[in-house]
């Protein structure tokens, strides 16, 4: 931030730094996949309440669409949105262009191919699985040869796409490390998070997608798989999210982050404790118990780190609290942050072995996942998009009201879903432990699952408001340029 605040006429102009078209493309791709993902989520939700309109149609198998649901979110929505965000933030923070704009466009194209072919493989792969040549290859090479999903949660990307995706992630890192390497002077917090993420993400991806598939069997694969799901959230999504927060919040509030020391604690605490926790996804499995204890303890430790980060941001906001009401992007960011604190606090409780007995395997966990993925990171992205689209399109939002609707539907929808599923989880846990027949737990969950459908529809409705608003802003709105202040290099 400091660097860009001191921008002088001699320093590069915004147009030379940021390729706005690319940012736009990334954001649009992200929104497209978010829509697809939500459709998949709705399909699964409808299946559970017996309302699935597409019952018995092979390509709409809810199981296959559940893969689409989670993967489209991770690799379609979050990855694209964050790449767009990186293309805006990194050049502006470092005052250097990305390594190669051509490479950026190539990565953009390649990434969409990866996401789309993954989706296609989920849908048709299992159908083609019964070909004799597949069986022969499996038997002769002794590797699991699945044309469809691979058996790692969130790493379902078919094994033949994995190497390409990994290469893509490495190229992303290289492309952005060029401007960072050129930047002189102390680096801003945002860049710590981004730099670490450029290292972590390819490492995580390689670990999770190759080791359990080819090298380690059984319980060890479970340990590595747990580490993978965990690192994907913690070392890919989280650093991008926090990096973005450290960038944007001081810009919106027009003042620096409250405490640099706490920023340091936050970053290094996260980097140290977060990856140690992988096994907490598989507590009470046959994974050795002392490793499980260690995962539990470091999980609880990281909640203290999270608390310092949250305190730091509250400290930054202090005195300007009213801006949350008036400034929409800021409201997205701080609401997301409150949700983040709730999720992490919940995490410190649910990770204990006492809670695990009850809530593991239940909808409690699903509620937790939605609060963190949608309530936090997606909401931050929406905030960033709400802030950036007027600048990218050079005109203000078509309708502030629709922006408000987007916010309220999303923020309340996801919170209702979270409360609802959390409660459902407690019920399910007790039904199971009480040894009721299985249908009792399934039927007892019905009311909660119905509420979940409607909460999901609220989130979907918010999303539609946003898309419609964007479309109107882009198309129908009088393209009288310069209604919004044209972005200068110094962030307004």
């Amino acid at each position, binding site marked *: 931030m400091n660097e860009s605040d001191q921008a002088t006429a001699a320093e590069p102009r915004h147009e030379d730094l940021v390729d706005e078209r690319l940012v736009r493309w990334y954001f649009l791709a992200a929104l497209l996949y978010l829509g697809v993902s939500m459709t998949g989520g709705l399909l699964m939700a409808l299946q*559970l309440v017996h309302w699935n309109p597409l*019952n*018995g149609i*092979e390509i709409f*198998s809810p*199981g*296959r669409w*559940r893969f689409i649901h989670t993967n489209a979110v991770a690799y379609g929505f979050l990855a694209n949105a964050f790449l767009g965000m990186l293309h805006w933030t990194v050049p502006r923070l470092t005052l250097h262009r990305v390594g190669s704009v051509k490479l950026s466009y190539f990565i953009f194209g390649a990434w969409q191919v990866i996401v789309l072919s993954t989706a296609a493989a989920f849908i048709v792969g*299992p*159908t083609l*699985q*019964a070909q004799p040549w597949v*069986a022969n290859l*499996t*038997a002769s090479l*002794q590797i*699991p*040869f699945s044309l*469809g*999903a691979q*058996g*790692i949660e969130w790493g379902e990307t078919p094994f033949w796409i994995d190497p390409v995706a990994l290469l893509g992630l490495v190229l992303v890192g290289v492309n952005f490390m060029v401007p*960072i390497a050129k930047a002189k002077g102390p680096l801003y917090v945002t860049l710590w998070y981004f*730099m*670490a993420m450029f290292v*972590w993400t390819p*490492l*995580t991806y390689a*670990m999770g997608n190759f080791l*359990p*598939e080819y090298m380690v*069997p*059984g*319980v*060890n*694969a*479970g*340990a*590595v*798989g747990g*580490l993978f799901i965990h*690192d994907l959230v913690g*070392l890919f999504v989280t650093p991008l999210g926090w990096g973005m927060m450290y960038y944007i919040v001081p810009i919106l509030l027009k003042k620096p982050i409250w405490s640099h020391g706490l920023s340091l604690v936050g970053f*290094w605490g996260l980097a140290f404790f977060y*990856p140690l926790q*992988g096994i907490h996804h598989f507590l*009470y*499995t*046959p994974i*050795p118990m002392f*490793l499980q204890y260690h995962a539990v303890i470091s999980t609880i430790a990281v909640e203290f780190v999270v608390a310092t980060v949250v305190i730091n941001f509250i400290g930054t906001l202090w005195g300007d609290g009213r801006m949350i009401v008036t400034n929409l992007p800021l409201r997205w960011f701080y609401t997301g942050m409150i949700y983040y604190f709730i999720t992490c606090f919940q995490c410190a409780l649910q990770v204990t072995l006492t809670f*695990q*007995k009850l809530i593991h*395997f239940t909808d409690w*966990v699903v509620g937790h996942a939605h609060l963190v993925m949608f309530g936090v990171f997606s909401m931050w992205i929406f905030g960033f998009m709400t802030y950036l689209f007027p600048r990218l399109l050079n005109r203000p939002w078509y309708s502030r009201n629709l922006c408000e609707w987007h916010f309220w539907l999303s923020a309340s929808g996801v919170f209702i879903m979270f409360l609802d599923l959390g409660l459902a989880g407690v019920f399910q846990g007790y039904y*199971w432990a*009480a*040894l009721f027949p299985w*249908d009792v737990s399934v*039927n007892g969950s019905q009311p909660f699952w119905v509420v979940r459908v409607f909460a999901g529809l609220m989130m979907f409705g918010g999303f539609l408001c946003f898309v419609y608003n964007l479309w109107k802003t882009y198309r129908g709105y009088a393209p009288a340029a310069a209604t919004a202040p044209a972005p200068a290099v110094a962030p307004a």
Partner: protein
Amino acid sequence: MFESKGGVLFLAGVGFFVLAFLFNGVIPMLMFRDMPEQTAEQVVNPRLMYQFTELSRRYPESFRTAFGEPTEENCAQALRLGRQVYLGEGCWHCHSQFVRPVSNESLRFGEVSQPIEYQNELQRPVMFGTRRVGPDLSRQGGRHANDWHAVHFFRPKTLLPDSPMPEYPWLFEGDPSKPNQRGLALITYVQWLGSWLDSYPYYEELQDFEREDDL
């Protein structure tokens, strides 16, 4: 160091990642390194062969087109394919495959899971699962007969009107009495789960095919 590029890239980026991998990955690998990994052929056992042969008697035409004779090699093939179907259809997002030592799970499902049970090709990647919409399946073998599974996969609501489990009619040629290759393989896979344990449910008494030809 804490704000320098080198510190962030190498200490936080590589260093802490590797440290975590040591704890979460390498230690269990070292601990279990003496447990050999079995192939699909090696995990075929007499109980599973019983079910596999039963499939060949019950659905002779479908079985012959799909697997030919009920030999052990073919059974291993069926296991592999069945596992792939289980994977590709996302069964593992609704069914777990481990029994925990808590919450009365051993009363409901059977013996608590042991590491050795997972040291085989069919658990690469391991199918622990993270969610139970339906029950745990790791002790499923022998609990239901093959034709029960066929009808259940074709349309779960036929057997349990309240079941939210999806239908899988594409594992059949239009009728639950005609499972196709994927269907037979999936049934074999499900019958395999838990068949290696000492305690086996024996819900349906195993019968000797040689003497009971009217099956």
